[in-house]
């Protein structure tokens, strides 16, 4: 038997010993939809970046020098600093969330001197001159498959901290404020902790119609909460 024949036979036996799962079109369609959404989100982000960059470039070309910077800072459209992209709530594309897997009790800086700390039993928020506030994640205080929200703020903006509890794996969370949808940076513990939280700083104050929505990796809504 040649080496070639030996390799052929070994590959065949190894491969045929494998029992693939049954074919299902569902995950393919879900993955294709998620991929299309990501592509649309990238296009939206690019369009926003171009829309912002164009007037800046125009001003810079027309009035180069130190004065141009001041002009741009006054006249250029306001861009929400912590969440640079946003979309209209009516848009089919969704902003992409950053997902961070954190260790138990690790304090994660979320901006403006504040932090979040996750344990198996609670999600805590502190810093910024305020005492630590915790939400239980495992005592049944919040219904399963639901999302709650803690809202606070300072002179620079409003902080949204959603808390999703449920069996799903949150891959994206958004908050919608005054018709604009912002991505939430998702924080979760390794494995399947049964909950996820996150944060988003939104310029301006809270008020009016607001909502928080949690999606899984396939783009399906796991939980939604609207108020106002």
């Amino acid at each position, binding site marked *: *038997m040649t080496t*070639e024949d030996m*390799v052929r036979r070994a*590959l065949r036996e*190894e491969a045929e010993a494998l029992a693939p799962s049954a074919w299902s079109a569902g995950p*393919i369609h879900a993955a294709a939809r998620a991929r299309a959404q990501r592509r649309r989100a990238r296009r939206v982000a690019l369009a926003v970046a171009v829309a912002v960059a164009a007037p800046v470039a125009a001003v810079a070309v027309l009035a180069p020098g130190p004065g141009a910077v001041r002009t741009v800072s006054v006249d250029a459209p306001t861009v929400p600093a912590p969440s640079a992209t946003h979309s209209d709530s009516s848009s089919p594309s969704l902003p992409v969330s950053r997902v961070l897997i954190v260790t138990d009790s690790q304090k994660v800086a979320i901006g403006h001197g504040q932090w979040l700390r996750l344990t198996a039993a609670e999600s805590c928020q502190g810093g910024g001159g305020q005492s630590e506030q915790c939400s239980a994640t495992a005592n049944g205080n919040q219904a399963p498959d639901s999302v709650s929200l803690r809202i606070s703020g300072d002179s620079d903006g409003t902080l949204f901290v959603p808390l999703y509890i449920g069996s799903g794996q949150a891959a994206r969370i958004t908050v919608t404020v005054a018709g604009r949808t912002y991505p939430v940076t998702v924080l979760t513990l*390794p*494995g399947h902790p049964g909950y996820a939280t996150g944060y988003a700083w939104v310029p301006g104050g809270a008020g009016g119609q607001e909502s928080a929505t949690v999606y899984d990796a396939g783009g399906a809504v796991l939980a939604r909460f609207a108020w106002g």
Partner: protein
Amino acid sequence: VGAVRDPEQSGLEQSGQGQSRLGQSGLDFEAFAAARWSRLVRTAYLLTGDHHEAEDLVQSTLAKVFPGWATISRLDEPDAYVHRALINNNRSRYRRSRVRQLLTARLPEPVQEDGGRTVEQRSLLIQALAGLPPKQRAVVVLRYWEDLSEQQVAEVLGCSPGNVKSQASRGLRKLRGHPALASYAPYAPERDLEGAGPR
């Protein structure tokens, strides 16, 4: 297979709502995928060495192919296109995994006692394949598992048939002395290596 193109660069994914499942050839995507699923997963398994990763790889590859299926199904050999997509997708996965080890904040999930096989438990052959560079491994898998010709492998990998021939020869040489092939070895000393290259 001259029509084979890189799915990442083909621009075929812009069919949107027009993403017909039926090409003009009448080749239905779901029928095609269902018929090829097991074979593709096995190929992906030989490329990745992990059952679940193999299924993820095939799913994500088919998801990339699906939006352009109306066009792909009209190619002379849609299989070649899908093979190329699978290989490219695996290459990207390999690169990402190397970067992720250095940069990510993501922690590894705890080892599942009853889950997939650990590295130590993997078969000797998978260990042997893991010792090959990615391109060489792809050549060996396509050539000796998929039974593609040197020309077909070259088109899938985007290289010359001569390169495929040399990669296959080197791959065989590395595998020959591995314990994974010991049980297949004849009792008499083997003298065929020179002639064992792809035909």
